[in-house]
């Protein structure tokens, strides 16, 4: 069986056509409005969770910070 020769294959018009078609499919998929809406929504919900966690974490430390402020050790 002949070894795989990428360079010879890449030089063919069929490969160029495949490359063009693959690139167009990738671009169309990445720019599909439904996919963009889905990924923007997923990112937004992840960020909202992240911010909620940060706020909860800060809030949980508030009593301890208040105690430390009172006794002057929170510098």
């Amino acid at each position: 069986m002949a070894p795989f020769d990428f360079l010879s294959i890449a030089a063919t018009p069929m490969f160029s056509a495949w490359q063009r078609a693959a690139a167009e499919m990738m671009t169309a998929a990445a720019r599909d409005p439904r996919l963009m809406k889905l990924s923007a929504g997923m990112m937004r919900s992840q960020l909202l969770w992240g911010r909620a966690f940060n706020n909860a974490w800060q809030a949980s430390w508030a009593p301890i910070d208040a105690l430390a402020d009172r006794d002057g050790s929170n510098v």
Partner: protein
Amino acid sequence: MQSHNEWRDIGLKLADAFDEMVAHGARARLHAQAAFARLMHGKEPIEYVRGPATPHHLIHEGPLARLLHYPSARAGGSAKPILLVASLINKYYVMDLLSDLSVIALLNRRGFDVYVLDWKAPGAAGPSLAFTDYVDGVIPAAARMVGGKHGGALPAVIGYCMGGTLSVMFAARHPDKLRALCLLGTPVEFGLSGALAKLTDRRSFDADLLMDVLGNMPPAMMQSGFKMLNPADAFNKLISLMRDAADGERVRHFVALESWLDDNVAFPGGVYRDYIRALYQDDKLCKRTMTIGGTAVDLAKLTVPLLNVIALRDHICAPPASRALMPLVGSKVAEIMEFDTGHIGLTASRRSLAELWPRIADWMELRT
């Protein structure tokens, strides 16, 4: 001790260290890919391509930037100083990519002393930084330092992309601190900047939420936004590399440029909020409502000689976004220089180096 806040600060510093590791890894990966492609053509691997190509030295390091000096190649005489302000998004050394592809080396050969602001990773300070720290802080301080090394002579400033936007605001607020201004692919009316304006539309993009969670804008996320502008680019580049690897120069150029693209520092979170809200979403700069540190940015006070270099195939800063600056400034000498190339091609293409930059150097010699 507010140790929970200290954990956040440690996280931001670790993120910066991670970004640096990723940059080194990307450079090594690209060399490995290039070596494999060269092997398929029966060729030796290329020599390892490092960052900035031209010898330079550090003259000052602050918390936000390093000030580097590339001395003029002409012996004797007094070299005219240029201060280069790069974008906060990508590193400056696209202008010093290879020994035979370096805008900075060309300027040195033309007798200019080039000083560069090499932005540092913002770390824990990033979320509290603002435009004023750069426009009223680092850049004027650098201009003063450069002037001090040249007997008080004011430097000409070259600003690239967002570095140009910073330079425009600096020149409008401190017109007495520079001699001339040259802009490269600089957006001013962000609503006209093309696909990036759509990506950052306020209906779908919440910069405040992003920065509340992340602190600083990670370079990987920033770069993914640019990659979305041309999703198939990485695929096409890989095929081209495999096909054309017999040409050592081409491979060197590819590896140098791709390594630079993956070598970034985080964008300071505080500046990022304003950058998206005030510039991309509200377009305050061209609407004359931009404020920094509580005071207005009045482009009519930009009175130094101005050269606005525009790339006609720029998909990051579409030409109208740059041209919008011209009627807003107060400069008596304000020229546009157009060139048929892309955003990065302005500095990283041999054609630009041969055809565009000699004309820019001529203009700088005349106006400085």
